[in-house]
């Protein structure tokens, strides 16, 4: 399962070296701007800048595409649904087939929503694919005062991921060896999947119980103060990422407003 091997971020790349929380905040700022605007100009500008950031992200475009190419499907289906099912078809007729008429303006709006989805997805992908979960947990504890028991507990659970992937396959093979087969019935398939999931969960809970005892035995969370082994400082460059994202978000909306293409989510 290729999807289950996390992309290892390159810490020497500018985006890979940035503080995880700075990247998270920057991506959230862009997402707010994208949520609020439905037009293709705002989304397009942000998408172009994000694509420009790919070389400094330290993640190879191939690896990123390998994990996220399905979003292209989603973007197409969002564009199609918003075009075909719009309450009114506006603009000159683009296509007419029987009762279906597609207006050029509506199609353009649908396309813009597809671009908007791509930009939303890429903003988050860039922030997350360049972040090591360990760094994120450290930063959350150091800057946002997230309880170490919760942050480290979640991190310990995350460490089980590769073994879950292996276990999932083993359970599947064991079931096949016993001749358990859904045939062509989707209902039987769903039931079998439920059983397979339950086996995974049972194994997971057993292991989690042992892990919790071990963590508690080592004194995790028993003292109110703890020092940080891996400091995650907020440097000037980290503030610059946030400022840059804010500038891009405001700038893209402002440009779109100036040329009269901006379409707000509410009150448009």
């Amino acid at each position, binding site marked *: 399962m290729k999807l289950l091997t996390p992309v290892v971020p390159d810490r020497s790349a500018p985006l890979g070296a940035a503080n995880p929380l700075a990247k998270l905040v920057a991506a959230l700022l862009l997402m707010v701007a994208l949520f609020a605007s439905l037009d293709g100009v705002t989304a397009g500008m942000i998408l172009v800048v994000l694509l420009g950031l790919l070389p400094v992200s330290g993640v190879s475009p191939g690896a990123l595409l390998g994990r996220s190419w399905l979003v292209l499907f989603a973007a197409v289906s969002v564009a199609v649904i918003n075009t075909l099912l719009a309450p009114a078809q506006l603009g000159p007729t683009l296509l007419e087939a029987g009762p279906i008429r597609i207006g050029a303006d509506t199609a353009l709006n649908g396309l813009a929503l597809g671009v908007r989805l791509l930009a939303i997805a890429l903003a988050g992908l860039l922030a997350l694919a360049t972040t090591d979960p360990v760094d994120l947990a450290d930063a959350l504890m150091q800057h946002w005062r997230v309880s170490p*028991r919760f942050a480290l507990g*979640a991190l310990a659970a*995350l460490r089980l991921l590769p073994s*879950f992937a292996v276990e999932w396959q083993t359970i599947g093979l064991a079931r096949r060896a016993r001749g358990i087969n859904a045939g062509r019935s989707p209902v039987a398939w769903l039931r079998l999947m439920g059983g397979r999931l339950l086996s995974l969960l049972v194994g997971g809970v057993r292991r989690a119980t042992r892990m919790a005892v071990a963590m508690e035995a080592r004194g995790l969370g028993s003292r109110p103060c703890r020092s940080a082994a891996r400091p995650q400082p907020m440097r000037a460059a980290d503030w610059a990422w946030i400022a840059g994202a804010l500038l891009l978000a405001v700038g893209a909306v402002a440009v779109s407003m100036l040329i009269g293409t901006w379409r707000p989510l509410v009150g448009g």
Partner: protein
Amino acid sequence: MTTASAPRPAGWRMIDIVVAAVLAVAFGVAFLAWNALYNWTTPLFAAVPAAQAVMYGVWLLPGVLVGLVVRRPGAALFGGFVAAAVSAFLGSQWGLDVLLSGLIQGAGAELGFALFLYRGWHLPAAVLGGVLAGAGAAIHDIVVYYPDAGPEFKIAFAAFVVLSGAVLGGVGAWLLARALARRGVLAAFESGRDQRRI
């Protein structure tokens, strides 16, 4: 380990946190498969695109399940959010928006249990949690993905999401929690104790 009659300790125990997180991580893995399935089956729903939302409930499952198993205020929110975070880290195609969805869905499930004052951990509470998680998810998705679609689509989509949340998310989570208790792995939890026959 405390006995069933002993008063419950105030805060979260380490075992509550780790088991909640592990359940959520397992679902984060399952989400990857489900995300792909959702995309591949999109053409099957070409006639009624809104009907694809019947598949939505699986994404709402972990919040409700973790709430049912751990039985603490905040458990459903934590479960929904961690499952989404795992899925985001593994490279869900939705990127960071998954975190937002996870928070909203988890909060919906949490509200379901909160409305029962964190005393009811039964099927109705699970279904209510699934329904509210579905309602939150539907609002988020309509804003993010389908702002231009007609009102018929929006209403049908929301109805399918809520229905799926009730069935897959609510009843599904309840069945899974019961099955987990029957396997005896929840011995350290109150949820594993009420099921035991004497």
